[in-house]
């Protein structure tokens, strides 16, 4: 016989103002199966919880209903209180008489009636609750980090330094990401490569890190603690074991005019190449598309030149399978193409470039050795116009968001330009300057006040060519005047977007993406590095535009989540998942089609001789999220949800209809 205790909370005035709690208590005290009913001012407080614990012991309760706020708020609190005195926590339920009742109603009498019903039907449910035990899932203590930019590098190093193995996958021939392309970093103007390359080398040499460059994640199976990842290691046509990175092959390659991706088309590279001198690993790749041998046979000069015999034209892509327990996505960002604004030339002007291209012009290792020269004719730039918010905050271009880092890098660009061209003039068109960050506002003030950069508040409406100059026509809204500035170079701060291929990868993992292709965090404030998929974490600009300090902080956050997961031998998960009745299951697998989490597997039932009797559905407890879709799809009710069984739901419903 059920012995249910009902505990009604006043929540100060929150509930008691609209709901007559004494009346609720008295009504429930008379309800069949209820042996104890009390009300209290703050049930979640220490004395309130004490009240529950004592009642469980004294009245030998078999179930508890706390009528208070939303279970989102305090279900763990009250379940823990029950467990403390030996009552299975899944025998405790909450009736939400605050958000669902007192907060949304004003008629006291009707609200009280509704509260009574809400508590009543949960009492009926609790009568049918069964004790459940948390599911324990074993953990493979090995992590996969996708993306070798600063986010991936930081996450990989932190996890590896914590003593666990990491597989770092990067699709480019070298790690380093966009940070390796940068000249200097704001707001301190320290050299980007100087602070990044030591970390790149550390990754390469770390005994716990397995570095796979020129590789991509092909498929992901499994669930938290137990992922199985397939990685495509693309053919480099260079034997990594043998190559010493001497560079003789690169010197010899006759294809020297290929636009360099690393220099964003401003520099040239060969067909066998390393993207930049500090590349990690320092091992070249052959670009099949441009290699003379792959295009029309012959050549093979690199092969003849290589003193180690490392060139291997027969190399094939390799598919590797790795087991990991956690995945950190650090896939970074790209810039939108700068030709989407036809009023800025739509890509027709060679001297209208984007921010990353300007970084390459500033970089000592860039295509101009750090001199600010025009891409069109190589003349020194004396006047440069920076345009911020190109794409960003422009709903007409489908990008309502702020790209966050542009205000700062534009200020940095203008300062660095003035450092290189003392008699040059830099202009910045801006909507407003967003310099929220440590030392950021000071940095922008420095650009304006000390470096003489001219900031014009307004938009640019058109860029056109005249007498070898780019005429930038805009408006200075502070003086209310249209302005035309003849410039040698125009730099567009184009919007940041999620990098290519991320949506496909997210789909393989089941990680939600937002409307702009950025990966969604589990909670915008309180779970910023986790995703909705257990065991998959986020780092860096794949979640939203971010600068380096924020990226590194988030990467370390993701790494610490991985480390705290690896500190346990098994992960506990909520036991409220689907369960199949193997006796009645006919193996139609409608449930499998309904399952959004790919949690339903095929299980073979065999007799003692090993003969196959039938195939039934099996719910993988590591993957099931307890959504209940399968229970609706099942034709003969062979799947039910633990803790939310049909019997319990019907009991709740009958309690309402009976009243």
């Amino acid at each position: 016989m059920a012995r249910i205790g009902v505990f009604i909370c006043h929540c100060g005035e929150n509930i008691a103002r609209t709901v007559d709690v004494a009346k609720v208590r008295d009504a429930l005290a008379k309800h069949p199966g209820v042996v104890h009913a009390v009300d209290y001012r703050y049930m979640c407080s220490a004395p309130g919880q004490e009240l529950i614990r004592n009642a469980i012991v004294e009245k030998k309760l078999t179930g508890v209903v706390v009528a208070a706020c939303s279970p989102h708020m305090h279900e763990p609190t009250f379940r823990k209180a029950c467990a403390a005195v030996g009552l299975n926590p899944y025998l405790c339920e909450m009736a939400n008489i605050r958000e669902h009742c007192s907060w949304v109603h004003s008629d006291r009498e009707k609200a009280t009636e509704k509260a009574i019903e809400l508590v009543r039907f949960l009492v009926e449910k609790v009568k049918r609750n069964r004790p459940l035990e948390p599911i324990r899932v074993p953990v493979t203590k090995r992590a996969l980090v996708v993306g070798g930019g600063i986010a991936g590098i930081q996450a990989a190093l932190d996890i590896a330094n914590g003593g666990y193995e990491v597989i770092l996958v990067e699709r480019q021939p070298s790690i380093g990401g966009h940070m390796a392309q940068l000249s200097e970093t704001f707001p301190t103007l320290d050299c980007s490569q100087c602070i990044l390359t030591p970390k790149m080398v550390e990754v390469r040499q770390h005994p716990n890190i397995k570095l796979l460059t020129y590789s991509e994640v092909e498929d992901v199976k499994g669930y938290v603690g137990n992922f199985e990842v397939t990685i495509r290691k693309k053919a480099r046509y260079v034997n990594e074991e043998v190559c010493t990175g001497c560079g003789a092959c690169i010197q010899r390659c006759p294809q020297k005019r290929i636009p360099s991706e690393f220099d964003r088309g401003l520099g040239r590279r060969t067909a066998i190449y390393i993207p930049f001198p500090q590349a990690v690993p320092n091992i070249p790749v052959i670009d099949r598309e441009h290699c003379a041998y792959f295009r029309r046979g012959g050549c093979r000069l690199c092969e003849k030149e290589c003193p180690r015999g490392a060139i291997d034209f027969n190399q094939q892509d390799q598919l590797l399978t790795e087991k990991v327990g956690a995945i950190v996505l650090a896939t970074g960002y790209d810039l939108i193409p700068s030709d989407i604004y036809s009023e800025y030339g739509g890509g027709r002007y060679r001297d209208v470039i984007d921010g990353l291209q300007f970084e390459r012009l500033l970089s000592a290792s860039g295509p101009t050795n750090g001199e600010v020269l025009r891409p069109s004719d190589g003349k020194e730039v004396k006047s440069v116009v920076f345009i911020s918010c190109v794409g960003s905050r422009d709903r007409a271009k489908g990008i309502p968001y702020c790209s966050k880092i542009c205000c700062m890098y534009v200020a940095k660009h203008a300062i660095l330009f003035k450092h290189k061209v003392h008699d040059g003039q830099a202009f910045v068109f801006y909507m407003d300057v967003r310099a929220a960050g440590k030392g950021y506002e000071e940095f922008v003030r420095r650009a304006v006040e000390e470096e003489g950069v001219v900031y014009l508040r307004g938009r640019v409406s058109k860029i056109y060519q005249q007498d070898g100059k780019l005429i930038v026509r805009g408006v200075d809204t502070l003086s209310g005047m249209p302005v035309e500035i003849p410039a040698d170079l125009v730099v567009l701060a184009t919007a940041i977007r999620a990098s290519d291929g991320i949506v496909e990868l997210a789909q393989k993992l089941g990680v939600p993406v937002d409307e702009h292709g950025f990966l969604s965090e589990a909670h915008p404030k309180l779970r910023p590095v986790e995703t909705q998929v257990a065991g998959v974490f986020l780092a860096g600009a794949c979640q939203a535009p971010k600068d380096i300090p924020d990226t590194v902080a988030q990467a370390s956050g993701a790494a610490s989540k991985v480390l705290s997961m690896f500190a346990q031998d098994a992960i506990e998960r909520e036991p409220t998942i689907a369960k199949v009745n193997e006796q009645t299951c006919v193996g139609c697998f409608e449930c499998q089609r309904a399952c959004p989490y790919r949690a339903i597997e095929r299980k073979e039932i065999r007799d003692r001789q090993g003969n196959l009797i039938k195939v039934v559905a099996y719910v993988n407890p590591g993957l099931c999220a307890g959504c209940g879709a399968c229970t609706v799809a099942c034709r003969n009710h062979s799947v039910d949800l633990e803790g939310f069984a049909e019997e319990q739901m019907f009991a709740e419903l009958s309690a309402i209809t009976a009243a």
Partner: protein
Amino acid sequence: MTAYAYFPGCSAHGTAKEYDRSTQSVCAKLGIELEEIPDWVCCGASPAHAVNHLLSLALVAKNLDLSPSDTIVTGCAACYNRFKTAIHALQHDRPLWEQVKQIVQPTKLNGRDFRVFHLLEVIHEFGLEGVKERVTKPLKGLKVACYYGCLLVRPPKVMAFDDPDNPKKMDELIAAVGAEPVEWEFKTECCGAFHAVPHPEIVLRLTSNILRAAKDAGADVVSVACPMCQINLDLRQLDIQKRHKVTFNMPVLYFTQLLGLALGISEGELGFDRLIIDPRPILREKGLV
């Protein structure tokens, strides 16, 4: 082919008679049937929408009510803009539509789905190949700066004419008749329009910039698709000469005049003599007249 309802606009019966005539003869050559809207009224450009929003919508609604066809064509960029803007506004605002109906008291408007085209679109839609086939005198060696002005393309969401910053339709037509459209960046610059009356100095500055850009791009002539643009670019050159001491001597022709020339329509019918800057010397130089 079904006939288009033709809305000439007031300029076509006054300052831009040569545009009207060349339009009619080019369309006749191509077999594009035009049926002038009987008893049409002013479209409202430009004063109406600046003075009274309802009036500007009602004038367009009145013309729509009079139109013999649901498919309307006009050669004037301002008329085109008024028609499209008004239809857009009325389609997206039912109460406004009811108000306008009260004013116009239409008899034939209900349930009709009007589509308004600029003449450029209609001929472009007719087909570049079709135009090319009918060319008898290719405009070889003639460099043309195609000028669209602002009203054809803006606001892009309503007009949906072409790339609002670098439209191509006129360039393609001009190329189809053998001339050479030049690459230039002032295709959609504002000519100053009606500022010619209260603030002529603004118009002189703007048109001077446009003409200069055309000259710098190497154009022999400018081709236009709007009577207002034509007047400002053509007529003002003498004032520019006086005020700014620069001489462009740049003929400004309607695109229909250039198409007509290539299609073998006679000089007299095309009305070259009605232009202020006489295009005949340069056309003669190129062996085209």
